[in-house]
């Protein structure tokens, strides 16, 4: 080992591959699907399914950056457009949950349509309810075993990809529900509900501030029946704090956050970089370039702000790569994943808002994408654990407090 920030050739190939895709396929339609909310960006979906899905022409025998490469790819795609990235036909968080907590057989069965030659499919994860967001233990949706079937009842909101995953054959929604309300978190399990399962209804699509090309669904479960083996992990209810026991159900679901938070951080960083790149280009068009070697006292306010924003972005990126690198190497990264997400969410919120300010009237105008990116960016400080939830996780880790000691 040695401290190094040199990307592998494979990471460069991947970066260039997705950057090209971002420039050619995403940027030209980014504004259109921001305006035409709830319209499926079918040219992008089809393009990704046919050409993007196979991935970059990397050399599998050569050294690879593992999860760092994934972060680089995500950053490039979200530099293109974060909403279109989210709308890509993939198993997304649903796939992550199956990957983390599913058996070999479950993985093979549920993920097969995503690898096949059929039509585009989506996966999704449904956790949030009208009365339960960050406090996942408060969810009210229930699952009851009836013979060899689970019966799901409840309402799920803010389900990213929920429309595609629930309506297009081959996809699935991973639904969190409790099998024993008295057990708190120990009773919460996750279930794979295939698209078009009777009793799962798409009842609404949110109108959002940003990431409008991404569908955010409300799903209603009314006596929705799924086979018993669609449960991820064990059906055993642990009365004790499940994060301390080996329950793969809750723990497995939580572990997906350690993987997904650096990815969300990388998404945020892509938007932040898009915003800074645009700002730099606009300034340069006006003959203003950022001087890094000028005395601090000689810098203009714009230069000072810009340099500070760049530092914030790079700080977030390095925290993110570190969390990803730890994952690749099998090191527990719960703390570092939350650090990266907390930093990236806040940094990019600040960066994109400041760029709107720096660009003045042009920044506020829809002629450029700066205002869109400002709207797109903010969600990164909210979903996959709000800023405050990630602070809470970091605080517990650095203070060595359990969740009951620091609530």
């Amino acid at each position, binding site marked *: *080992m*040695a*401290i*190094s*920030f*040199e*990307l*592998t*050739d494979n*990471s460069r190939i991947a970066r260039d591959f997705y950057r090209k895709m971002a420039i050619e396929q995403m940027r030209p339609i980014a504004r259109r699907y921001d305006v035409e909310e709830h319209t499926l960006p079918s040219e992008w979906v089809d393009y990704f399914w046919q050409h993007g899905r196979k991935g970059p022409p990397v050399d599998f025998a050569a*050294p690879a*950056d593992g999860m*760092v490469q994934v972060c680089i790819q995500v950053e490039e795609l979200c530099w293109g457009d974060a909403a279109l990235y989210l709308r890509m036909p993939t198993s997304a968080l649903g796939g992550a949950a199956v990957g983390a907590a599913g058996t070999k057989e479950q993985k093979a069965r549920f993920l097969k349509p995503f690898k096949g030659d059929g039509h585009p499919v989506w996966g999704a994860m449904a956790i949030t309810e009208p009365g339960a967001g960050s406090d996942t233990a408060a969810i009210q949706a229930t699952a009851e075993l009836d013979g060899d079937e689970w019966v799901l009842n409840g309402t799920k909101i803010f389900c990213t990809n929920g429309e595609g995953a629930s309506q297009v054959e081959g996809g699935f929604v991973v639904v969190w529900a409790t099998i024993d309300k008295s057990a708190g978190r120990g009773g919460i399990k996750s279930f794979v509900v295939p698209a078009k399962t009777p009793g799962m209804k798409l009842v609404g699509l949110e109108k959002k501030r940003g990431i409008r090309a991404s569908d955010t669904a409300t799903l209603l479960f009314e006596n929705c029946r799924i086979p018993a083996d669609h449960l991820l992990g064990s059906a055993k209810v642990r009365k004790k704090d499940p994060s301390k026991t080996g329950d793969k159900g809750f723990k497995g679901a939580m572990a997906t956050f350690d993987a997904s938070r650096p990815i969300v951080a990388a998404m945020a960083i892509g938007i932040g970089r898009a915003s800074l790149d645009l700002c730099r280009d606009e300034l340069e068009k006006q003959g203003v370039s950022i001087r*890094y*070697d*000028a*005395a*601090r*006292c*000689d810098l203009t306010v714009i230069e000072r702000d810009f*340099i*500070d924003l*760049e*530092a*914030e972005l*790079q*700080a*977030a990126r*390095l*925290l993110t*790569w*570190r969390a990803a*690198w*730890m994952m690749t190497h099998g090191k527990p990264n719960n703390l*570092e994943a939350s*650090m990266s997400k*907390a*930093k990236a969410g806040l940094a990019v919120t600040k960066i994109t808002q400041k760029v709107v300010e720096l660009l003045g009237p042009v920044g506020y105008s829809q002629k450029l994408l700066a205002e869109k990116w400002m709207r797109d960016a903010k969600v990164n400080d909210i979903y996959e654990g709000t800023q*405050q939830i990630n*602070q*809470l996780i*970091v*605080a*517990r880790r*650095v*203070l060595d*407090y359990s969740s009951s*000691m*620091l*609530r």
Partner: protein
Amino acid sequence: MRPDLIEFEPTEEQQLIVDTVRQFAANEIRPQAHDAAEARKLPENLLAQAHELGLVALGLDEAHGGGGDRSAVTGALIAEELAYGDLAIALAILSPSLIGLPVTEFGTDPQKAEILPALLGPNFNAGSLALIEPDFRFDPFRPTTRATRDGGDYTLRGHKCFVPWLDSGDQVLVIAMEDDDPQAFLVPRKTQGLSATPERNLGLDALPTVELELDDVRVPASARLGGDAGCDVHSIIDRGRVALAATAVGVSRAAFEIARDYAKEREAFGAPIATKQAIAFKIADMAIEIDAARLLVWEAAWLLDSGAKATREAVLASRQAAQVARVVTDGAVQVLGGYGYIRDYLPEMLHRNACGFTTFETLTLI
């Protein structure tokens, strides 16, 4: 070593150095930090002890007995650990490199032969750098101190401040404008025309520094660092910025740990204050910002080691680390409440020290 991968772990050799310095910082430096500041005096025994560890020698010219490891990454790792003990003492311990490293990098053979043996000898021998000037418009690349060629000599004229001036040193490296180019000059401290006035500053009480008046100071042409070839002040400053940023991370980490431990011990309303989100979140933010700043420092140092120009990265790292140090140390003062304002508790001093990072700009420590 596989340099073509992103990695976040020091080499085994570096880790050994880090462990040694961390122990020295915790066991030897930290316990003396408060008293040294109050007495405005460096603990001499500590400088000798540190000298024996060979931390400065590590980076100096091999031909003259140094370790020849010019890695900025290694330097950053050492600088963070020393400053984690105490900033003033760390800067004193590292002061020989203020002269030793630029001479190793750019010096002519006679300059190396003159300067390096003293720094590598059995006794601690301080170094000094005169870069900063007492003016809010100070630009490290365009100092107002001027060097004028006059026959076989140079005449130096100007005004410097924050110049480390330890008892043992006998040379100071002066950065001055020569025509349109900043250059460095080796000036014996006893040279005529050089007058030093001790300073008192907001912090760094234990580190003796002076304001330096250069009133037609004459030095031979051979005093110009690098001789006819001169030196690249930009490179000296880029490296110095990264080194200083590393010390800022060390100071931040010290403040963070004190705040964290205090918050877990101090009870209010029947429970440790760390169990309140208002305090816990502040501590979480400190941890995040410190790690982020460290990674920026590592990246800039790594880039320097790769031989690439690292001005942008050095600026980003030093700006960020300076701001983080100020915020984190102030946060520690706040977490300690009333005790944060009392000089018997370290955060008070740590915050005053940290406020200097935006001023010092650069110190060629690594």
